[in-house]
């Protein structure tokens, strides 16, 4: 609550009052929610261009006008990093875009990323006052993206002023948790080195999320901002392998933040899963997103299936199935054991997939893959399901319909049923406590069993969202900074 009040202290400014008084609430709530301009579905599957084109300034200002600038804005509570939402929105309304971007940067290292990939409908926007009025919430995500993009397009990114304290900290992993931690620590004056195992900086933002949802140029611009602040990035370096814990201490690092992310893909353990053409979504997306497979000039091969089954109902499954359409699949199908209402994917992603011609086989679960004489997958047997009582996840469970099994011809299957934490660091640092799920055990301050090691993101959560990982990075930065400055 105090956080929320602090985050809204700008509300009493004269200009905010003027904006509130300029138009009665009734008139503002009558404005329809902005519609995101996007490329048409049939065109999208011919290329990798970003689907959502972003609001125009006029659209954004009008959408910002809808925000009632509530005295106790519940939207902030819905945001894992508590962005000062009304403050940045009202700056968009008065067309002070640099100030809107500055407010976002105070709490988020990656506003242009979050504005694109956050599940706002379950976070900030789900808490908007408009929901209580049975109206569509303020499009906070669209506005966040608008402000961040405007800053980037103006080529006038504000580098915060930094007072160096000379204390070195290391980050393992350059995904959302690592980047958010790095930005926060650098702003506090720490000397930050980020080590990345892959040859590209950005983690899941580069290898996982496809270009049509999050262009690499957007990620690169955020990385450039961090570089301009003085954060150093080192690709091809694995903490625990290339550099040991002791190496880091000898190099003068006083704190280490482990954000090594998700790792091992889960498989279902059904017959035929070892056939060629059955792969994890991590493999499929990494080949295409990170390695450029399928594009001229790139050596990494990728299977271009004509009939592709993607198993799972999360965002990664949607990314995979939509990628398959773009790779030329005639049939790209989501196979999901529950119904659409239970799917963990964002509503927008499901809608986009459908517009792109993706087929949905809900209430179906693979029980066996069928192979040809060369060991390649050529079919899948699916058990039909029906919904039962809600289970531990709060979603309705699935119950097999006895004897109801259908066979589907496929030539590629992409398994997207979750991941386990990356085992590299837990395996190679002695004394680091690990949970029975393989995640690094941390306390509320994100501190591990080893005093100098903090951890956050998927290596702690097992599998979560970009924004939750960023929230961990922020929290770890705050507690590590406090500890190191107290020791100094």
């Amino acid at each position, binding site marked *: 609550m105090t956080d929320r009040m602090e985050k809204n202290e700008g509300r009493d400014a004269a200009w905010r009052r003027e904006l509130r008084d300029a138009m009665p609430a009734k008139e503002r709530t009558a404005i329809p929610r902005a519609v995101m301009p996007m490329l048409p579905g049939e065109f999208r599957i011919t290329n990798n261009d970003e689907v959502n084109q972003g609001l125009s300034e006029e659209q954004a200002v009008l959408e910002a006008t809808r925000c009632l600038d509530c005295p106790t804005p519940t939207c902030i509570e819905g945001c894992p990093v508590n962005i000062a939402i009304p403050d940045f929105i009202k700056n968009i309304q008065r067309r002070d875009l640099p100030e809107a971007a500055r407010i976002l940067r105070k709490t988020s290292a990656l506003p242009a990323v979050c504005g694109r990939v956050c599940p706002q409908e379950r976070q900030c926007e789900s808490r908007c006052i408009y929901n209580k009025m049975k109206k569509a919430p303020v499009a906070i995500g669209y506005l966040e993206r608008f402000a961040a993009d405007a800053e980037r397009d103006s080529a006038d990114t504000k580098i915060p002023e930094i007072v160096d304290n000379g204390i070195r900290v290391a980050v393992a992993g350059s995904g959302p948790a690592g980047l958010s931690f790095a930005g926060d620590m650098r702003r506090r004056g720490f000397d930050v080195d980020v080590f990345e195992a892959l040859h590209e900086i950005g983690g899941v933002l580069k290898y996982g999320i496809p270009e049509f949802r999050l262009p690499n140029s957007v990620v690169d611009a955020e990385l450039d901002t961090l570089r301009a602040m003085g954060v150093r990035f080192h690709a091809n370096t694995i903490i625990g392998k*290339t550099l040991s814990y002791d190496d880091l201490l000898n190099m003068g690092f006083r704190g280490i933040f482990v954000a090594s992310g998700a790792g091992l893909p889960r498989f279902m353990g059904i017959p035929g899963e070892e056939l060629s053409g059955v792969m994890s979504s991590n493999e499929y997306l990494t080949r295409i997103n990170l390695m450029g497979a399928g594009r001229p000039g790139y050596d*990494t*091969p990728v*299977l271009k299936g004509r009939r592709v089954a993607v198993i799972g109902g999360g965002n990664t499954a949607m990314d995979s199935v939509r990628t398959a359409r773009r790779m030329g699949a005639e049939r790209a199908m989501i196979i999901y054991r529950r119904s659409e209402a239970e799917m963990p994917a964002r509503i927008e992603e499901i809608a986009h997939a459908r517009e792109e011609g993706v087929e949905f086989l809900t209430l179906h679960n693979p029980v066996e893959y069928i192979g040809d004489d060369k060991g390649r997958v050529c079919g899948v047997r699916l058990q039909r399901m029906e919904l039962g009582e809600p289970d531990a996840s709060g979603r309705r469970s699935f119950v097999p319909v006895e004897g109801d099994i259908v066979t589907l011809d496929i030539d590629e299957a992409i398994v997207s049923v979750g991941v386990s934490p990356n085992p590299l660091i837990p395996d190679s640092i002695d004394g680091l406590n690990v949970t029975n799920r393989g995640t690094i055990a941390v306390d509320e301050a994100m501190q591990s069993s080893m005093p100098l090691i903090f951890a956050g993101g998927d290596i702690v959560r097992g599998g979560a969202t970009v924004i939750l990982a960023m929230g961990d990075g922020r929290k770890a930065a705050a507690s590590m900074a406090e500890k190191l400055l107290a020791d100094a």
Partner: protein
Amino acid sequence: MNRIIEKSHFSEHVVKLVVEAPEVAKARKPGHFVIVRTGQGGERIPLTIADADVAAGTITLVVQEVGVSTRKICALEPGDCFNDLVGPLGRATAVGKREGTVLCCGGGVGVAPLLPIIKAFKEAGNRVVSVLAARNKDLIILQEEVARYSDEVLIMTDDGSAGRKGLVTAGVEEVIQREHVAEVVAIGPAVMMKFVALLTKKYEVPTICSLNTIMVDGTGMCGACRVHVGGKLRFVCVDGPEFDAHQVDFDEMISRMKAYDPYTN
């Protein structure tokens, strides 16, 4: 960027490269591998480390031309660089004093990753017998180096142009029959490891093999390298590359290694 310091040819299609990689040279142990990438659009290719020189800050890699990416690697000359090199990856070989002979058998370029293991077992005080096998004498590599750390070396060639004519398994069986072999280490083509494993299983000699499955990231993320070992799904990049050869499903592995054949050449 990691510079090539030295290059030599073992045969027309097998090249030895000494590469600048000081951190990897320091951290690596026998059994470890690296991932390299050549050119802007290059593939990530796993290669087992054949040797390292901590003082010089270099590692040695032995590469056989089999496709687009290995052809690019073999075309690199001293002064050229890998765009990327990361490691050491995988779990190191469990080396120690054994109650009996350690029999190390290498097929083709598999001898290169075997060399540091031979060396380590010798340094741990074991009697080491090595069996090197190849199609013909031109494809036998590192014989001198292997001999330096082995009590005895047997050479087997398919055509009898060097050593004895016959398959690697003939050499292995001979040694097992004449002396007490405590452990076998087999590295080479999947088919070779499969047949060595079948043989040593008959004699109940514990056998370790090092798998060279397809990998993309090589850091425990993509699952391309997965293989069943003892009925359990294992990932070669983080759980391996070495496994109990008697437990590996080689037929599955051999089939999966062809997954991208229609797409590469």
